């Protein structure tokens, strides 16, 4: 969908969804690294209800929409499930993310919410996330540029 044919309701709907999402993260305590670390250190298992509760709601929504509904009213797009292809990066990336989450107690959505509740030291984490995202993007762009050159030499290249 191009920007030109967007409904005027598109960005307000995204904003409204974001507000409810962020309110939920704030109420749940996930915006507090201490709460997340307590969960990971087996001192408070409440976080299971955050991720579990959220996944149940989206699960029901996805099921109802893909089974009974036709197209999204604002965009006219078909309802689909979130199914991404599997490769080893899913495991490598998950491992690196896990170490980072266990060290800092903060993940991206919760970090934005944490800033919203006024926790300004979280800017360290948000800055770190941008640096990390930049580092992997830079590295992958360099690598694919390299393999494109090699591909020209060897006539065969992968990914």
């Amino acid at each position: 969908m191009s920007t030109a044919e967007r409904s005027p309701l598109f960005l307000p709907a995204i904003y409204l969804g974001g507000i409810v999402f962020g309110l939920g993260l704030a109420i749940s305590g996930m915006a507090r690294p201490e709460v997340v670390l307590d969960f990971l250190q087996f001192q408070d298992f409440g976080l299971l209800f955050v991720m579990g509760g959220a996944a149940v709601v989206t699960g029901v929504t996805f099921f109802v929409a893909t089974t009974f509904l036709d197209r999204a009213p604002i965009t006219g797009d078909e309802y689909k499930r979130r199914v991404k292809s599997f490769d080893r990066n899913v495991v490598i990336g998950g491992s690196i993310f896990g170490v980072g989450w266990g060290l800092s107690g903060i993940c991206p959505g919760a970090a934005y919410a944490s800033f919203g509740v006024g926790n300004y030291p979280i800017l360290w984490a948000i800055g770190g996330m941008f640096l990390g995202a930049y580092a992997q993007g830079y590295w992958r762009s360099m690598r694919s540029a390299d393999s494109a050159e090699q591909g020209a030499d060897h006539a065969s290249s992968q990914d």
Partner: protein
Amino acid sequence: MTELTPLLALGELFPRGILPYAIGGLLVGLGASIIYLSTGIIAGASTFLESTLSYVSDVDRFNRFKYVQSRDWRLVFTAGIVSGAAIWGLVLNPGIWTTEVQWWRLLGGGFLVGVGTRLGKGCTSGHGVCGVGSLSNTSLVNVATFMAFAIGTAQLVMALGVNP
């Protein structure tokens, strides 16, 4: 006495109670559902990092069509998350709260989160909430992996006596 024991055990598992966690989780799911039902978009929070970098960097990776095309609504989604949390922090539960976790843990952990979520195609909201809600095997494997490594790391940090 025998009836009290399970309750006592539950209290130890959930020292802050269950209600705020459950309400918060339902709202997170509701927020994702509002966006999905109205637009068909399955929103994750970490793609924002790369799509926003496309505004300031000309590295190929960040300027792929799907990032440039989605970067404005991802900014709006993130602004919504900040606003929703601010409604809580300023109106519903006023009073500033800041984390005690040390800056180097936030910065270093954040860096690894930035690398890992982008390499692994998603984070706690994309894989953990939307992917699990879709019963995607890729997401279930990713969540199991990051949970195991996060628990291991947090336990190690605690064992080393780093606090907070």
